[in-house]
């Protein structure tokens, strides 16, 4: 059997390839819980504030119920987050040596400024019911929500430096920090932060809608879930619009900073004016197939959304590749076009589907017929998978679209891994983490669904001893 170049059997995968798979698997898994936790922490803080302001009991029950789900997500996010920090050094020691002077700073700041606040005030929030005054307790909820956002900021600033290095100089073959403000206020980071935070709101919103819809359909707890729905549906609609708009401007910035990534996303091979937006295309599955076999497109749309003019010029993969060969030396500077192309479409497809769904929900809400709309309530549950698919696609696009670079223009991925860690060792950790994560996903899903089915506990009643506890253990 003939195998395409670069593709070979699983057993002969190199330590580098395995380390890349490990980074991909652990990061995407971690990022299931990150946006959900950020969004739910914010939602819970809002519900608790509502309770504080109105004194209506159903807001307290909503706070407790959603808080329980937030904590399940939190636990998994914190546990898998440890691996994220450790694996830079474990699998990517050359990368760590090269970028440590710059990349370590936002990581350390994330710990000092965000993780300490997050963990401490989360503990106070969970166990502080009845021990802290209501105002202080509410402030704890907001401290948790705020610190999750702050941590996202620092880690995105670190990632953005890999996309668009700024505030550095090269010294002894390593990148050296010259301006911390440039790194922290990198325009790439500002866009990425806005985009990610809005996506987090969108993610939590879709989960709020799904769980509420499931309960409303069964006629359970309509006060609690009707209240949630009235907040979540407009929240998702607005967040979807804003995520798409910010994403659009992020795309324009990316065209400037990483033109190859955007060219690959649109599968534009040769520079053209008045380029069409491709809806469906096929090509050879390799990094630079040099052309497409089939392409269905809307004329001029790509040029128009990217440059603002229907006849605007879009630079193609082949031209950019030639330019990089002149600049960086011989080699192939294209990512796997099919991955960039489809991950970008997956992200956008999910985003527009969510927007349409939430807008429909808002319209039903305004008409006052949402709780009778069988189809909306039924579709809400499977639609909760969309935000997770969208953010996975988004990260696959961002990270794989940057290849062959790990730090754009400065360091290539194939020299960034740990030289002393062999394939056998990476196999052990790759299989170990994947198995462990798989088991945890199954258990977490079970616990999550059980909490959902149990529903909010009535505030006037004590929870049964021996039964699942409310928030504390």
């Amino acid at each position, binding site marked *: 059997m003939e195998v395409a170049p670069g593709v070979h059997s699983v057993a002969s995968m190199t330590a580098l390839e395995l380390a890349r798979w490990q980074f991909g698997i652990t990061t995407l898994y971690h990022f299931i819980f990150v946006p959900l936790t950020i969004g739910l922490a914010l939602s819970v803080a809002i519900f608790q504030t509502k309770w504080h*302001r*109105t*004194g*209506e009991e159903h807001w307290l029950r909503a706070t*407790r119920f959603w808080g329980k789900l937030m904590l399940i997500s939190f*636990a*998994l996010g*914190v*546990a898998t*987050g*440890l*691996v994220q*920090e*450790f694996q830079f*050094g474990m*699998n990517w*020691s*050359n990368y*760590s*040596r090269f970028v*440590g*002077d710059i990349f*370590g*700073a936002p*990581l350390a700041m*994330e*710990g*000092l*400024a965000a*993780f*300490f*606040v997050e*963990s*401490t005030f*989360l*503990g*106070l929030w969970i*166990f502080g*019911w*009845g*021990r802290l*005054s*209501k*105002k202080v307790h509410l402030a704890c909820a907001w401290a948790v929500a705020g610190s999750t956002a702050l941590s996202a900021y620092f880690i995105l600033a670190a990632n953005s430096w890999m996309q668009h290095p700024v505030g550095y100089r090269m010294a002894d073959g390593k990148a050296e*920090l*010259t301006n911390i403000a440039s790194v922290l206020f990198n325009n790439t980071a500002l866009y990425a932060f806005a985009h990610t935070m809005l996506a987090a709101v969108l993610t939590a919103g879709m989960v709020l809608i799904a769980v509420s819809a499931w309960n409303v359909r069964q006629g359970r707890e309509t006060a609690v879930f009707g209240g949630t729905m009235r907040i979540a549906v407009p929240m998702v609609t607005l967040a979807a619009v804003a995520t798409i708009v910010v994403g659009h401007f992020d795309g324009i910035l990316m065209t400037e900073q990483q033109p190859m990534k955007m060219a690959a996303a649109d599968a534009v091979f040769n520079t053209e004016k008045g380029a069409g937006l491709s809806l469906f295309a096929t090509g050879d599955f390799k990094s630079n197939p040099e052309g497409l076999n089939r392409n269905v497109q809307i004329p001029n749309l790509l040029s128009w959304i990217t440059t603002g003019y229907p006849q605007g010029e879009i630079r193609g993969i082949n031209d950019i590749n030639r330019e990089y060969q002149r600049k960086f030396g011989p080699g192939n500077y294209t990512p796997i076009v099919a991955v960039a192309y489809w991950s970008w479409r997956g992200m956008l497809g999910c985003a527009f589907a969510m927007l349409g769904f939430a807008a429909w929900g808002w319209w039903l809400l305004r008409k006052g017929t949402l709780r009778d709309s069988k189809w909306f309530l039924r579709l809400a549950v499977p639609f909760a998978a969309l935000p997770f698919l969208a953010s996975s696609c988004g990260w696959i696009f961002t990270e794989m679209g940057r290849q062959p670079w790990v730090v754009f223009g400065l360091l290539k991925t194939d020299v960034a891994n740990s030289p002393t860690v062999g394939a056998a060792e990476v196999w052990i950790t790759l299989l170990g983490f994947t198995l*462990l994560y798989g088991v*945890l996903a199954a*258990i977490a899903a079970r*616990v999550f669904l*059980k909490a959902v089915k149990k529903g909010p506990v009535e*505030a006037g009643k*004590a929870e049964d*001893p021996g*039964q*699942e*506890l*409310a928030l*504390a*253990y």
Partner: protein
Amino acid sequence: MPDYTTLQVVWFVLISILWLGYFVLEGFDFGVGMLIRAVGRDDAEKRAVLHTIGPVWDGNEVWLIVAGGATFAAFPQWYATLFSGFYLALFLILVGLIVRNVSFEFWGKGESARWRRGWEWAMILGSALPALLWGVGWANIVHGVPIDARMEYTGTLFDLLHPYALLGGVATLLMFLTHGAVFLSLRTEGDLGERAKAIAGRVAAPAAAVGIVFLLWTVLSHRGGIDVASAIVAALSAACLLAAAALARRSAGRAFLATALAIVTFFVALFVDLFPHTMVSSTSGAFDMTLNASSSSSYTLTVMTVVAALLVPVVLVYQAWTYWVFRQRVSAEDFGAVRNPLDLLAARHEDEGEDDELEPAGSRS
């Protein structure tokens, strides 16, 4: 602004402090995790045991995350060599910590005896494995491991498992176990407190014995003769370990102070022994990694110093406040029934006679 060498020393000290904070704080929750079945006999008791560390263990673990992040930022070469070199050992630590973290969260989320037993064992093993391996790891860092001229670790996992390092692992395991038992005897009442005290009394002496042998070995095996400063701190640690063994059955408060100080001085002795290196090479003294060779640029260290100076005091204040909020001893009677937040608020209302602040704003009218 202080000069480059001073900054490097400052960051070595600061990273040492982060590790000390981690071991003193997470040390007792490792111990509590290991003792969940030994101290807690029924579900109410186990719940009470979990509540002693529930509000704080996550914050304690952040000390590790920050120690790792600070090492990456201030000494990237140290971070890269250590993390890629101790690859499988760190993998095992991570697995232990992950399993332990979720066990706290999931234990109460199921009712069956099998579910709870499973998570209790996850908690025990997930606490014991890192407690053991941190000692093995630090013993190796101080003792020296095969490192070549390019700062790369050239050994395997099994090169880390020699008698000295294993003794270090047993020492930290027993110290954390004692620390946790003493913590439980300090934080619980009734049968729980008595049981924890009895366990503390039994494990404190072996912990002291192993710890002292390990410290003695460390002091005597220091390359190029005894390091006097390290030896003095090691002697202090030995004294604290003995004091803990003597006090464990008598005064929980003083015994806790002794175990905490023992852990601090134990690791200070190791850090002083290591200074001014970040990694010691057993291949050749010429390949030892110095602070200077491991460090970030002067600019990065300056930036990080400012950030740390601004944030660390604040962190200490609110973490201390958490311990103050949850200072009350817990007993199994408190956890027979789980109360809802309105009951808790009402109870607080009665206890402290606080007025309108507790009432929702809207219910006044």
